[in-house]
């Protein structure tokens, strides 16, 4: 427990300057846009006169200088206030909090599925490097890895929703079904099968390849040679010595891929019309909603930092050599 707190503190301190860079870069990027949210809003309601434009700018603080606004944004961010969405006319924080659970559910399920199945298949492939089974799994994973997830999502929905009608075609749950408890959970899972499948299949291939590569390398190491010399059974060597060694890089991969997965969910959510975080990003882009887009990018950065912290914790638990000695002082 103490180790976890030390790790958390060290992570949090090193995360602050990085987050600051993210905020400042995004701020200046979004500032460079021609036309602001007020223009977009006025365009959407059919135009307005100069006086309305002026008063709206004042109410959103858009008439102040750029640096003053950056300072305002940073100070409100320090109070966990993400600002006000122009397109939705609601607080950004509230919108994100509403949409995030759907995305976390999608990503969490996809990660669990791809991690579990990918490492299992990777162990199958790596048990005998160079065998026919290994070649087949390796080539197969390469093919799957090349498929764009959003297209896979479309193809899956043609096959299983349009033709076979096994799963609902879009959304996260049946609208106004009045379902509660277990039947609601069942409804949501039915909606999630295809998007999770599309997102997971790509990463499954990646995890398979990483596991397989780690195992192929482990076969050449001295301790495996020693285990073989001792006369241990092959299955015991595969599981206890070779695979175990190959799983640690997989945990690292999990942290590295979390950002890519979050990005991938934007397109998947658009394909399956899931009201999640990624779809919110697309809505922010369409509505030229700079505060919302800013909030989304900052939140995603915090999310990735959090996932990487969890990965660190898992790593520390799995590998006793990772100490906290320097941070403990």
């Amino acid at each position, binding site marked *: 427990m103490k180790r976890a707190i030390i790790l958390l503190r060290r992570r949090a301190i090193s995360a602050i*300057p*990085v*987050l600051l*860079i*993210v905020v400042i*870069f*995004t701020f200046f*990027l*979004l500032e*460079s*846009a*021609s036309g602001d949210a007020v223009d977009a809003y006025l365009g959407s309601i059919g135009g307005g006169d100069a006086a309305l434009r002026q008063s709206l700018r004042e109410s959103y603080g858009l008439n102040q200088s750029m640096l003053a606004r950056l300072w305002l944004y940073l100070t409100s961010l320090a109070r966990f206030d993400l600002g006000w969405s122009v397109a939705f006319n609601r607080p950004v924080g509230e919108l994100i909090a509403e949409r995030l659970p759907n995305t976390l559910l999608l990503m969490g399920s996809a990660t669990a599925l791809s991690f579990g199945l990918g490492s299992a298949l990777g162990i199958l492939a790596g048990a005998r490097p160079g065998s026919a089974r290994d070649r087949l799994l390796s080539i197969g994973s*390469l*093919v799957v*890895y*090349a*498929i*764009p997830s*959003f*297209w896979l999502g*479309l*193809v899956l*929905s*043609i096959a299983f929703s*349009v033709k076979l009608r096994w799963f609902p075609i879009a959304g996260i749950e049946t609208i106004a079904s009045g379902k509660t408890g277990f039947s609601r959970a069942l409804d949501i899972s039915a909606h999630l099968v295809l998007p999770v499948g599309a997102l997971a299949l790509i990463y499954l291939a990646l995890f398979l390849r990483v596991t397989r590569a780690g195992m192929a390398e482990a076969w050449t190491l001295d301790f495996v040679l020693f285990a073989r010399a001792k006369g241990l059974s092959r299955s015991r060597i595969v599981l206890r010595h070779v695979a175990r060694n190959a799983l640690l890089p997989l945990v690292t991969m999990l942290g590295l891929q979390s*950002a*890519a997965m*979050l*990005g*991938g969910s*934007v*397109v998947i959510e*658009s394909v399956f019309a899931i009201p999640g975080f990624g779809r919110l*990003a*697309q809505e922010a*882009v369409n509505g*030229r909603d*700079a505060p919302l*887009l800013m909030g*989304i*990018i900052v939140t*995603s*950065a915090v999310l*990735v*930092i959090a996932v*990487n912290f969890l990965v660190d914790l898992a790593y520390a638990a799995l590998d006793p050599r990772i100490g906290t000695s320097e941070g403990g002082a």
Partner: protein
Amino acid sequence: MSRFRRLLSTPEGVAGLAILAVLLLAALSAPIVSPGDPLRIAGRALLPPFADPAFPLGTDRLGRDVLAGLIYGARTSLAVGLAAAFSAMILGVCVGMAAGFAGRIVDEALMRVVDAFQIVPGFLLALAFVSTIGVSTPVVVLAIALGAWADPARLTRAQVLAIREQDYVASARVIGMHPVEIAFREILPNALPPVLALSATIVAGAILTEAALSFLGLGNPNIATWGSMIAEGRSVLRSAAYLSVIPGAALAVTVLGVHLFSEGLVNALGDDGGRTA
């Protein structure tokens, strides 16, 4: 030349090279095979594939030739993918070298910037970048590169730091070689190969990102792209699924070709992996 022959001796390398060669040929010969604007209305709308010899892959909702879109889309995919990967490599190697050589505060500051670009999902960044600056091909290239340069930067820095400590660099210093000469003649050529090995992954990623961007309507609307073709086909998914399936399959085959090629290359170079320059 022997390295090339070794590449041809791996099945992955042959398959990858073949796929990429066909694509390159299609992309280069696009104006000859299918002259004129691929986005123009060429015939009857929603013609299925293999029905009319004039349109071997059929036509879309507006009567545009699918085959023409496909080969012009190959142009866009390859050009944007290669340009974005190239920009990301240049930026990454420069930042990584600067961080590795400068050390101390410069290193620390640059690496925090690299961290920042690694924790923001590249696709979100590209989305924000294209939507604020405005859609055009160079902006799309830059947007994709922004999300991809952090990995080569980190690897270059690690390489420079490791090679700096080698004996031959110390000897170069002892014989009085200028630090700039050491950097460019001794360290850089040895630091680059593993970084270059990343480039295939980056090209594949860039092609996929470009497709996803144009799928969401953030690609250049005046040129044919596979992503926008897939998106176009969505509205008639029930009746004419081929409109989305064909460009998507082309995309998957392209990315597979890049992966196979890089796999073959890694296998071919495997024997002398450490000192290929």
